[in-house]
């Protein structure tokens, strides 16, 4: 290829690289916008509920982890589509200090929740909620309602209704990468190695 022919090719390649870099930057900016700044975050209200095996569960048990707290119900269609995403996140990120907690707001309790979570192959902690817990989190009524909680036990983002899988995953990764509210460049580079 002649030098004259190479120049346009390099120019195009340069434009593509610049565009990709810009997209990546915009994407990161969007995640930052969805995740509240550390100073704006409020503590996630504590609760004490029981899981399917009757074991006590509290949010305090998860301090130091990034937690996705999902309010849902068996009668909620949009909730159903999220469950496999959350199961995937649990599997993919649990070793990096991440956990999903599901809180069902089914009035009938475990009698309907147990068969449903078995059918859906739920691999994360499931609890049955009550009015008190619902009130603590703003009188949760519309489902799904999901809170992403940082390692300090503060609410970094809240979503009412179905949002895309990538929104949750980007937020989880952003918080897992954060050290004291700032992105942990060291951790990122270690993972890249």
């Amino acid at each position, binding site marked *: 290829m002649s030098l004259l022919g190479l120049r346009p090719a390099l120019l195009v390649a340069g434009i593509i690289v610049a565009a990709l870099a810009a997209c990546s930057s915009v994407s990161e900016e969007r995640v930052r916008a969805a995740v509240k700044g550390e100073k704006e975050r*409020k503590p996630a209200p504590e609760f004490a509920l029981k899981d399917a095996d009757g074991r006590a569960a509290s949010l305090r048990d998860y301090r130091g982890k990034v937690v996705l707290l999902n309010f849902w119900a068996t009668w909620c269609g949009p909730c159903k*589509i999220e469950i496999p995403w959350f199961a995937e996140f649990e599997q993919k990120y649990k070793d990096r200090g991440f956990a999903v907690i599901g809180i069902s707001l089914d009035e009938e309790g475990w009698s309907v929740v147990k068969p449903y979570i078995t059918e859906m192959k739920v691999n994360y902690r499931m609890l049955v909620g009550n009015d008190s817990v619902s009130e603590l989190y703003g009188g949760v*009524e519309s489902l*799904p309602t999901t809170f992403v909680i940082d390692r300090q036990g503060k*609410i970094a983002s809240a979503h009412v209704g179905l949002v895309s899988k990538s929104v949750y995953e980007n937020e989880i990764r952003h918080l897992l990468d954060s050290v004291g509210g700032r992105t942990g460049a060291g951790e990122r580079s270690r993972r890249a190695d």
Partner: protein
Amino acid sequence: MAALALASAVAAQISSYGSVLTVTAPAKVFGKRNRTVTVDLQIGLRDGFHVNSHKPNDPYLVPLKFTWDETVAKPLELLLPEPRLERYPFSPQPVSVFTGDFKARLKFRILPGAPKGMAKLTGKLRYQACNEKMCLPPRTIEVAVPLEIAN
């Protein structure tokens, strides 16, 4: 304090949905003892919302259901329009729903021993509404239809 602040912030977002279903009953219906009386209820849903039909095609979904107090009349029949099979982003299978405005036609037989004069057909409608992105919990609302009973 933080929990309260959070509660008020999220509650403000939720309360904006309010009631998404309304039932309009006739001002009055007339009937005779031991005869059939027909009642048309107009049901209206807020734009963008649907309710599961009386025959949802998923056992976990909450069906539309009337229950009636049988003090003055016994419910005989409920006629609803054919449910729509709608596809939503959250469901790979079509969902059996009602949307918009529709009519529920109910037939009752007035009890032979019902007292003459003004009475009320009272009942409850249980339903569960969703839009494309979220669902509201099952709700039960009271329905009352003034009934004038002749001999």
